[in-house]
């Protein structure tokens, strides 16, 4: 356990800790370009050089390990000068691109130059020019002039994606990132190279030139595209998601996300959104108000006295809170109804992140339903025979034409969904739902990690969550209301569903909690943000 001093601050760290990691522990900021906590350390950018009493020359803090009695200086005049020199070299051939560069505003090079140099150029010659638009793969374009050759993208492909696709060719100022001959940067995680590029060299085809980053508003989200549930940040502009960026969660996805999840936000923009509640008026389906649609739905379902003649299609796209509210409906007013679990079909899986189950919350929904003794059959086993009414949540169920025909054959069809799909089309009563971008709630991933997501975009006022409709239907059929804010529902959920008991709403940030895990009483609140509701305080543990 070496003890050392960094800028006069004493710190004791584990053997093997680098100076950079130790410095971050005591709040000393050391600038870096090539260092990434999830990758190996080549120490090639030289931005993190620090002075120590253990070496005659400046030492790269990202690579050098802490030693006993080490004295590190990150602010000595030599180091200040060294950083300026490093930045001067890095900027020597850098194009004057900020006004057209996607990275401007979130560029590490801009930040470091402004903070550590802010000195004029001394270049007397012409800059070296390199290819400006070099397509490396389906979603990644390289601007070779902007590249500072930190090799983060190369290391990512080698070490994380497991496919060696990128390399540096040529020497000196002609060095350039490129793909191996005949190869493309087409691994399913290629988009991460754009995220980790500290400058604007690697750009996403999807986001390139679309929106200036300082116009974006961000919300923490959870990717719903598979049961991994990567922690993400949804960046929106004018209430429309513009890109998805992975956030660090060591329990789920480290720093990464697959390209499927990254680009999935666009799928929701390609389908027509259905925001109007509809019900039967004088024998025809008409747009009505929410209240009227809910009344109509309750009337349709309530008219079926024998609840066993009602079929309810639930979905693993519910948040845990939605699932809990739906469970209240199914064990209360609709007790006895036949339950079918829908959801998307399985897909590709790999050993990195991607899971075969392409639904975000199967584990959570099963846990909640299980707590109330609700058994769901797979939707594939749906047999409409004898059913008088069906209540369908969600619209992305993998279902064949024959099954669909069976659904449509049921006389009364209440559908809660967000998009223009066959489910919307077949509905006798339609209740417009929210997408996951519009919800606050929690998802439980395949591994049992429960993560919180915030609302990224605002929904039309007519669109409500599945749980809201479940509660309103229950209310219309004589049940009492349960719905408050999602955190209030979560409080009730953790009181009734085993596995959630030890959690608190606040403790779900930043990295989520595993089913069965308990907040430590002595631990400081895990959430840096103020506690949203009094009920969220860690009281019952």
């Amino acid at each position: 356990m070496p003890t050392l001093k960094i800028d006069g601050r004493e710190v004791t760290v584990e053997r093997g800790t680098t100076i950079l990691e130790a410095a971050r522990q005591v709040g000393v900021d050391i600038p870096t370009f090539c260092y990434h906590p999830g990758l190996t350390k080549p120490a090639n950018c030289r931005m993190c050089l620090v002075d120590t009493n253990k070496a005659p020359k400046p030492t790269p803090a990202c690579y050098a390990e802490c030693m006993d009695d080490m004295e590190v200086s990150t602010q000595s005049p030599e180091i200040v000068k060294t950083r300026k020199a490093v930045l001067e070299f890095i900027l020597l051939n850098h194009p004057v691109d900020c006004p057209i560069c996607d990275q401007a505003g979130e560029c590490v090079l801009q930040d470091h130059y402004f903070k550590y140099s802010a000195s004029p150029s001394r270049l007397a010659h012409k800059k070296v020019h390199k290819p400006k638009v070099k397509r490396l793969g389906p979603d990644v374009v390289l601007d070779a002039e902007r590249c500072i050759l930190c090799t983060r993208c190369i290391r990512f492909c080698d070490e994380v994606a497991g496919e060696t696709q990128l390399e540096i060719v040529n020497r000196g100022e002609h060095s350039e990132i490129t793909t191996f001959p005949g190869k493309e940067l087409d691994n399913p995680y290629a988009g991460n190279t754009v995220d980790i590029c500290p400058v604007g060299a690697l750009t996403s085809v999807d986001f390139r030139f679309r929106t200036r980053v300082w116009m974006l508003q961000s919300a923490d989200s959870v990717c719903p595209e598979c049961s991994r549930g990567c922690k993400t940040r949804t960046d929106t502009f004018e209430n429309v998601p513009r890109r998805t960026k992975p956030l660090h969660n060591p329990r789920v996805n480290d720093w990464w996300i697959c390209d499927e999840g990254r680009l999935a936000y666009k799928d929701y923009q390609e389908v027509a959104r259905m925001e109007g509640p509809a019900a039967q008026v004088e024998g025809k389906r008409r747009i009505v108000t929410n209240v009227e649609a809910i009344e109509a739905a309750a009337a349709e379902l309530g008219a079926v006295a024998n609840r066993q003649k009602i079929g309810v299609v639930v979905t693993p796209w519910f948040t845990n809170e939605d699932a809990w509210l739906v469970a209240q409906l199914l064990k209360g007013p609709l007790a006895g109804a036949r339950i079918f679990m829908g959801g998307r079909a399985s897909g590709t899986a790999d050993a990195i992140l991607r899971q075969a189950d392409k639904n975000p919350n199967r584990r959570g929904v099963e846990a909640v339903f299980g707590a109330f003794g609700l058994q769901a059959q797979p939707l594939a086993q749906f047999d409409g025979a004898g059913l008088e009414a069906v209540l369908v949540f969600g619209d992305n169920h993998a279902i064949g034409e024959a099954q669909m025909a069976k659904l449509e054959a049921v006389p009364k069809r209440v559908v809660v969904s967000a998009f223009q799909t066959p489910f919307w089309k077949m509905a006798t009563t339609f209740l417009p739902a929210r997408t996951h971008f519009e919800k606050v709630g929690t998802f439980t991933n395949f591994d049992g990690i429960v993560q919180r997501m915030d609302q990224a975009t605002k929904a039309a006022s007519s669109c409500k969550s599945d749980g809201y409709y479940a509660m309103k239907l229950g209310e219309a059929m004589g049940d009492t209301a349960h719905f408050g804010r999602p955190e209030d529902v979560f409080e009730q959920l953790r009181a009734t569903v085993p596995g959630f008991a030890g959690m608190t709403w606040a403790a779900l940030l930043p990295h989520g909690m595993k089913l069965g895990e308990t907040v430590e009483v002595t631990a400081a609140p895990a959430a840096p943000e103020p506690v949203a509701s009094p009920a969220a305080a860690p009281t019952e543990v």
Partner: protein
Amino acid sequence: MATHVSRPTHGHDGHGHGHDAEWAKRPSPGKGNLHPQAPADDHMHAEYYTINMGPSHPATHGTVRFELTLDGETVVEIDPHIGYLHRGFEKMSEVCTYGQVLPYTDRLNYVSPLCNNVGWSMTIEKALGIDTPDRCKYIRMIACELSRISDHLTSISAGALELGGFTPFLYGIQAREIVWDRIEELTGARLTTSYTRVGGLNHDIPAGWEEAIENSRKEIQHLVDDVDKLLTRNRIFYDRMAGVGAISQADAIDLGFTGPCLRSTGVDYDVRTYAPYLLYDRVEFDVPVGTSGDNYDRYLVRLEEMRQSWRIIAQCFAQMEPGPISVGDWSVVLPPKDAVYNSIEGMIAHFKLIMEGVRVPSGEVYGYIEGGNGEVGYYVVSDGSGRPWRVKVRPPCFAIMQGLRLMTRGALLADIIPTFDTINMIGGEIDR
């Protein structure tokens, strides 16, 4: 050094009739004299009545409302209502970069905007711990003194106008126009100057400007001398001003008076001499002070201060040497356009300064200078970002307006006008 302004003694010029002696017999206005004794016609007095003066009264310029309680024509109570020109300057500043706040400061004291510009920039420079080049300081001093002249001219001229002196008003405003022409040459605008920058100035003085200033000085001093001749020994003006709106030294200090209003009571506090900023310690000038703290003294102090300002300006031009007008640090001052368009270094610095602003270390700072009306102070709290976390302005006339009640209670309704004029309340500054 402090010099007393001299009050003329009437009587030797043919139209004095021992007025001063009669004046002395008159119950003096001010606190404690509300009802000196029940007058003989007490039974005729009706009850007090309350009237509004302003906010759209021609004499309540700057937009202010007085709620007056009158006993006949005597002011029993005066309750000034400010806020009609509130723009939320302080709150707006919290969402602007330090540079973006500057244009808002133009609109504080809009008669001497350059003083506000200089004050703001100096406050941020104080927080950053940087020092501007000498040439920048001299130009800032010249700008401040021109502003002071503009401020005092406005106060004196408007005051004269409202006492019926239309000619001195025209002369004064003509002089102010000349000042504003020079300011326009310097900054490109008469009022919305936005001339300074954190760390320097927008640009150097234009060619031939020194000569233009010298010519203007002659013209303006001639006009001011005319105003002086028309007003200082004018019987009507003197009677309306002398002894009216007086405030004691102790009260003035207690209420936080600064500037001409404080100096008229005999206190020689002037930020320029008590806490010399810029290069005021390198120039010689006198700080005129009065004796009685009445309207007349405030008028005389302003008149003399204009003459001292010209002295300062002349010395600044004499001492000024060619050189840079801004600190060279690109993390504070925008790089030259050539560097912005042709080098990535200049481009990044420009981008960061425009988008995120100067990074001011976290902490608090109070910067203050001598504005036209007194001490203009900016209290700024920074959280280390490029935008202020909190800004509080200390406008000099806010403190002085508090004294209006002491100055006018017991006086006549008509005395409010010259008193309000010499206070020189500026709506943009008091309401922010």
